């Protein structure tokens, strides 16, 4: 992903002249995009890598009409971070599972042969689905319907508001509740490594009031 050494990038700076289309928009907004990527993934080196990837994708994009090139690039960048995060979390969960099951000890992922990744992934997928089914089932009806319409029927928030006869902000509230609730489940099930989420709302994490010992 990074053909040149650390600190180097193929993305040309603002003075480069020969680029066009989306790539040109990227060059214009390079600094802001890098700042966003750094804030989004919390790691400057990784942000550079991702900017590089963004540059490759943008350069390959056939030049055509794009409403707002800048917003388009930010969205692309945002998706790149999410994709990287998904891969990373899955790999971590798989490695940890494999290490515990096969060797009974901690070890470096690189030291071992491929643990039949596809079969593992199939199992992981089924477990994920089961976990989500439970989480979705425990949502209040309003939030569940809004989520269904939005995510599975692909209906826009404005249309959902019309369909359900509620306000646009009501739809937002439903969706927010649904996502707030569901975001707990991956970490709770040990799917995604709970490193990032261990301090945020596991059921056992309630802090009891101090000084009440009798």
């Amino acid at each position, binding site marked *: 992903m990074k053909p040149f050494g650390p600190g180097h990038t193929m993305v040309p700076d603002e003075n480069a002249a020969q680029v066009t289309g989306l790539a040109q928009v990227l060059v214009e907004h390079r600094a802001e995009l890098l700042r966003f990527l750094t804030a989004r993934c919390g790691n400057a080196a990784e942000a550079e890598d991702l900017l590089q990837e963004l540059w490759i994708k943008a350069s390959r994009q056939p030049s055509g009409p794009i409403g707002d090139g800048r917003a388009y690039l930010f969205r692309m960048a945002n998706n790149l971070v999410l994709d990287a995060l998904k891969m990373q979390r899955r790999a971590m969960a798989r490695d940890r599972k494999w290490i515990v099951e096969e060797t009974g000890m901690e070890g470096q992922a690189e030291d071992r042969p491929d643990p039949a990744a596809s079969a593992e992934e199939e199992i992981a997928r089924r477990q994920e689905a089961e976990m989500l089914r439970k989480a979705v089932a425990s949502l209040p009806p309003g939030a569940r319907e809004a989520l269904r319409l939005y995510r599975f029927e692909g209906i826009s928030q404005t249309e959902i508001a019309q369909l359900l006869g509620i306000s646009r902000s009501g739809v937002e509230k439903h969706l927010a509740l649904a*996502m707030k609730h569901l975001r707990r489940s991956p970490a709770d099930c040990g799917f995604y490594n709970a490193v990032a989420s261990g301090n945020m709302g596991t059921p056992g994490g309630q802090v009891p009031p101090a000084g009440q010992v009798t």
Partner: protein
Amino acid sequence: MTNTEQAIIEQAVAWHLASLGDAMDWDGFTQWLEADPRHRAAFDEVALADALIADHPEAMPPVEVANDDWRGDDALPTPRKGLFSMRWAGGAIAASLVAVLAVWQFAPGSTVTYSTGMESREIALEDGSRIELAPHSKLKIEGREEERMALEGGAWFDIRHDPSRSLAITAGALEISDIGTQFDIQSAAGQVRVQVAQGELRVSSEALGKPLRLAAGHGVTFDPAGGTAQVATLPSGRAGEWRDGRLSFDAAPLPLVAADLSRYAGVKVSVAEDVRNRRFTGTLVIRDGKAALRDLSQLMDLELGRHGDGYRLEPRPR
């Protein structure tokens, strides 16, 4: 979860939803991310959860009527303006059916009943409050703002405090109202225990002379036999500890301990007549029901016998 964490998650969700639309403020989002590293962690979780949903359409149940005790006629809503005046393209007919069902579900006066088997279950309320319903328990929620509830069994409540909403929970002969934040309720065979971890609440009952105010770190045990309520201070972390696989008792009557073990540890256990008045003080680990039962019988110097398809606590033969 602290209020700050709640607020961060809410902001993360709002940013995530906005990022899917056209009017996203990417600079504002960057600044929000930079303001606090917890913002990024929260956003990661929300975005990952949403990505999971998108990856698993099969996790979404088919269109259903969620009300367990659906009461046909009297729950019919008045038709909402706009619903019937919408123009439908051909393919939207299915969607309109979804909508009609969905609107019925929100009808005022509808009742939703949640019940659990072997496992506990989390219930999310519209206002962001959370309830963890214990195994073998039942919670009925009624009212447009989900403001009336009735509990049989146990539940942990994490309720967002809203002075404008008159939330009331009925458990046995008690009514719990004027509620703020976190507390646990256990109700079985008329015996009710309420334990407050955070905030405070009001406990009233026709059986009691006057309502009680119960603050964080306090619990009340109501015994219907004598019509008495006993208030005690709680060790820190005691309220809702079943969620961590422990049950603690302070001079609790043995039948109540047995009822709790049956609910939480999944073992059927009864108490012989001769020892029903014995009281137990101590903590039981409930991950393994049989082990918990053995611990209890040893601590109390009782005989553990088989009884039908379960167990029975009996006096030791002399």
